[in-house]
């Protein structure tokens, strides 16, 4: 192995899949050998069976759907407000000076700490779940987009000026297109974090969702179901990540991503 030498596409797939196989194998060895009692950790087989019964008997697909809806809903609301605000902050320094100190403060407030308050304010319905995701994502999006927009290459801005662009044109035709790929990367990252918030939100005061199912399974000490729930979240994350990357390659063929 030499530092920074790229790996071939085939080897990449084999190596990536290899670790998954190894991981499951270790898990199987630990459980089937009786080394870890089933009370603490279900075997891979039992986990799959538990998953099957969840999907066929307990309507787990509905839980998955509602959780996806909460994540995507809260995330989209946060992005719809956070991205434009971040772009404005990056582009116009007085706007940044006005919002930045508060946003920097607010983004350290843990979204999960708001759950009790949000239950008080919004009850235990969907509004509360969406609010948790929103609080967790919004400030991160704003600050990261502001940094990206603020780092727009000055020579491109100057070139646009000498071609006759004014403030509006600079924002629309230079800052936004040049920031777009990195903004999408940021959204991909934040969507990942949004998944952690939704599960926390569903652990408390929820009657549906993947997090709620995991909570219920704990009462029954069904580690198979709990693990299946966690794995499902991981798989959804993997798929959305893949979709996001594919979308970025399609949207930004000019960029080297």
């Amino acid at each position, binding site marked *: 192995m030499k530092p920074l030498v790229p790996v071939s596409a085939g080897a990449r797939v084999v190596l990536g899949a290899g670790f998954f196989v190894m991981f499951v194998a270790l898990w199987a060895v630990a459980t089937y050998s009786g080394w870890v009692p089933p009370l603490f950790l279900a075997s891979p087989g039992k986990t799959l069976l538990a998953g099957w019964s969840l999907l066929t008997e307990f309507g787990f697909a509905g839980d998955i759907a509602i959780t996806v809806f909460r994540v995507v809903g809260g995330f989209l609301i946060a992005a719809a407000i956070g991205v434009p605000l971040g772009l404005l902050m990056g582009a116009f320094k007085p706007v940044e000076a006005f919002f930045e100190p508060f946003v920097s403060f607010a983004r350290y407030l843990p979204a999960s700490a708001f759950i009790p308050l949000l239950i008080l304010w919004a009850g235990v319905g969907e509004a509360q779940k969406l609010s948790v995701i929103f609080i967790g994502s919004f400030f991160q999006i704003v600050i990261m987009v502001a940094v990206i927009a603020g780092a727009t290459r000055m020579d491109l801005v100057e*070139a646009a*000026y*000498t*071609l006759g662009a004014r403030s509006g044109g600079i924002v629309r*035709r230079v800052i936004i297109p*040049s920031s777009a790929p990195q903004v999408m990367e940021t959204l991909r990252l934040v969507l990942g974090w949004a998944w952690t918030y939704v599960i926390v939100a569903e652990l408390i005061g929820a009657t549906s969702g993947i997090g709620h199912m995991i909570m219920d399974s704990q009462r029954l000490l069904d580690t198979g179901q709990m693990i299946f729930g966690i794995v499902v979240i991981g798989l959804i994350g993997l798929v959305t990540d893949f979709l996001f990357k594919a979308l970025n390659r399609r949207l930004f063929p*000019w960029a080297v991503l």
Partner: protein
Amino acid sequence: MSGKTLRIAGVTRTFAGQGRAKPTLALQPTDLTVAPGEFVAILGPSGCGKSTLLRIVAGLDTPTAGSVTLDGMTVAGPGPDRGMVFQSYTLFPWLTVAQNIRFGLQERGLPEAEQHAIAEKFIARTGLKGFENHWPRQLSGGMQQRCALARALANDPEILLLDEPFGALDHQTRELMQELLLEIWEADRKTVLFVTHDIDEAIFLANRVVVMSARPGRIKAEVTVPLPHPRDWTMKTTPDFAALKAWLMGEIREEVRKAAAA
């Protein structure tokens, strides 16, 4: 030949010091007049303030004192009447070659058909045919600068400001680019203000060479280039060229030495 007269009068630039550092004088009061259709090269060692002067003409920097006027109108900021090509590659990476060239035309709100016609004309003149739909990252440095030149020319500016546009290119490509620029100038006679530290480049391209001193910059000498047009590369080996080069080298060496000692 058309265009407006550029008048630089007493332009001075001082950069504020960081913290308690004293402010630096980058440009001493400078006067320069460029007539319509002239090709003037500003020649000087690096850090002499020649780019600062050009940026002030472009409106990208503000003089501490003095003024820049174009036919009597004061330059208060950047505008499409002063097209610029930078040393760094400044094509918009998210636009194709043709879209880059149309950038200024779109900003002016020209009809689509006219935009395409103009872009096509300059794509042909800069030898970019067949590359219209390439992304900038797919182009060599030389081609990127040709596209940047086409983008500036498409806007039909009164004056073309070139800030060491070929500085990042290899020697052979640079010579080809010089010939291309000369060909365009000989056809259009557009006013050009060209900043460079390359003596050959200055003589080969310009009608007049202005030599700047080491920092703080000022114009220390000025010479008219007597070589006739059209020029081609063989001119670089003529005695007239060599004599002018020898004289300019003497002027510049002195400044480089001062800059190194400072």
